[in-house]
């Protein structure tokens, strides 16, 4: 499904920060993890990830280093900073607030037809 542009842009920060909080990583691996953990529901254009990474780097949430792989290819790794972890906490609070608000509203709307794909998997039965 197609997520709106704004929604993708807004969610990219917490997603990238959360993935990097698991451990250092690089662009392609981050993208695979996003695809995996969203169950294919979030389709990012591959290239768009990099401006996001560079913005987070500029803001000081993550830092980058070049490493040479065994194949001799140079690869840019990213690591979350202490400030990035704080930002992740902050983002988490904000998204939970949005999520909680929407959940109570979904109940009030009580839509007759369920939208199985729009709700995250863990609450598919709600």
């Amino acid at each position, binding site marked *: 499904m197609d997520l709106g542009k704004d929604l993708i842009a807004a969610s990219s920060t917490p997603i990238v920060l959360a993935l990097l909080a698991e451990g250092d990583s*690089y*662009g*392609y691996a981050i*993208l695979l993890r996003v695809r995996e953990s969203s169950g294919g529901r979030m389709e990012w*254009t*591959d*290239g*768009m990830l*990099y*401006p996001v990474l*560079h*913005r987070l780097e*500029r803001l000081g949430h993550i830092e980058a280093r070049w490493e040479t792989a065994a194949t001799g*290819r*140079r*690869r*840019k790794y990213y690591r979350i900073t202490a400030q990035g972890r704080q930002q992740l906490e902050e983002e988490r609070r904000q998204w939970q607030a949005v999520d909680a608000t929407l959940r109570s509203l979904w109940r009030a709307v009580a839509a007759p037809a369920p939208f199985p794909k729009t709700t995250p998997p863990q609450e598919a039965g709600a």
Partner: protein
Amino acid sequence: MSTLDPEAALEEQIARWRSYLRRRQALLPVDVAELEDHLRESIAGLRAGGLSAEEAFLVGVRRLGGVDALSREFAREHSDRLWKQLLLTDAEAAGGDQTRGRQEAAVALGLAVGAGVAVKVPAFFGLALGDENAAFYARNAALFVLPFLVLFFGWKRRLAPAALVWPAVAGGAAALLANLYPFRTTGDTLGLFALHLPIALWLGVGVAYAGGRWAQGNARMDFIRFSGELFIYYVLIALGGGVLIGSTAMTFKAIGLDAGHFIGYWLVPCGAAGAVVVASWLVEAKQSVVENMAPVLTRVFTPLFACVLLSFLVTLVATGRGVDQAREVLIGFDALLIIVLGLLLYAVSARDPQAPPGTFDVLQLVLVAGALLADGVALWAIAVRIQEFGFTPNRLAGLGLNGVLLVNLGWSAVLYARFLRGRGPFAALERWQTAYLPVYAVWAGLVAVVFPPLFGFR
């Protein structure tokens, strides 16, 4: 390509994709490297899933997103990159070898200091900078600066010493003539010598700049571009220097000291000499970073000069006024031809030779034709009087310069007209201009070397 093995074909496709991305201003080479790593991983993943190398490449590129959209996103995050910043070396911009860049900066600054010191050396031998030795400094001005410039390019292009023999011989000969010719301190020929020697020696700088490729047209065209940018940079640095001088004078005056001597005898002469080397280094360093200014100015002023020339010709015909025959008129028309030639040269230098004729080309031809007509009228008026007054060095030099420029512009007009009518390639005009470069140097050398003895050093 299908006969190649798939790995080589894939490498070739990736190389082409990479060079395509590199042309984007918003993408730095490190970004391209990062994206390339991504593309390669993506291709490897897709091939493991059963796609062929070519299919995997296509899908991988597709997933990365369109280059336009991608560079737009990068530009949004890195808007500063669209304002090209001055990186001190090409190598630095390419993310590569930085030591050479630092070396170059050190060499350039060292040579600039050298030029500044060279200006002061004669003062230690009793030839103090000042009115009483003005003639000495006028004769030798070019020799204080140009050797350092030649050395800089010799170092930068890694030329073998043998390649610099001719510039060195020319410089040595010039130094001998400058100081052995028995000039009269206030003579015309001294002024002509001081004016023409730098132009003749500039060819030596060109030879060093081209680094062994002087015989090639595009190397000469690069030298033309370099000269134009150097001029603009030098003017800008001079403006900054003016502000520096003002501040120096003002701040020292505030504590009751007069900095006039320091400014007049150190800051201005040494700064003016050193700035030539610094400006050359900057032009080389920013080549790929900043838009060239000379072609931009050309675009602005070509229509304006064309308008002025046309209205001059119309007024001339309508009012039937004669051209004033004063000496300044000849110099004025020489200056006009130089400006028109400069406009033509820098329009040519920035034009894509493959592009079809456009409005601007017509304008350019109008400009050249207008200048030729106006000059023809002036020459005719002056030629009538010159027989009465006889030839002075200045008059002959002015007339000769006019001839040199007239030949260039006349043939340029013919070539341009041919191009506009689709009868010849634009490259012919380019070749004509680059082939003509030595003519200026030869003429300037002639004036500097032959005129003084010819006119008895008066």
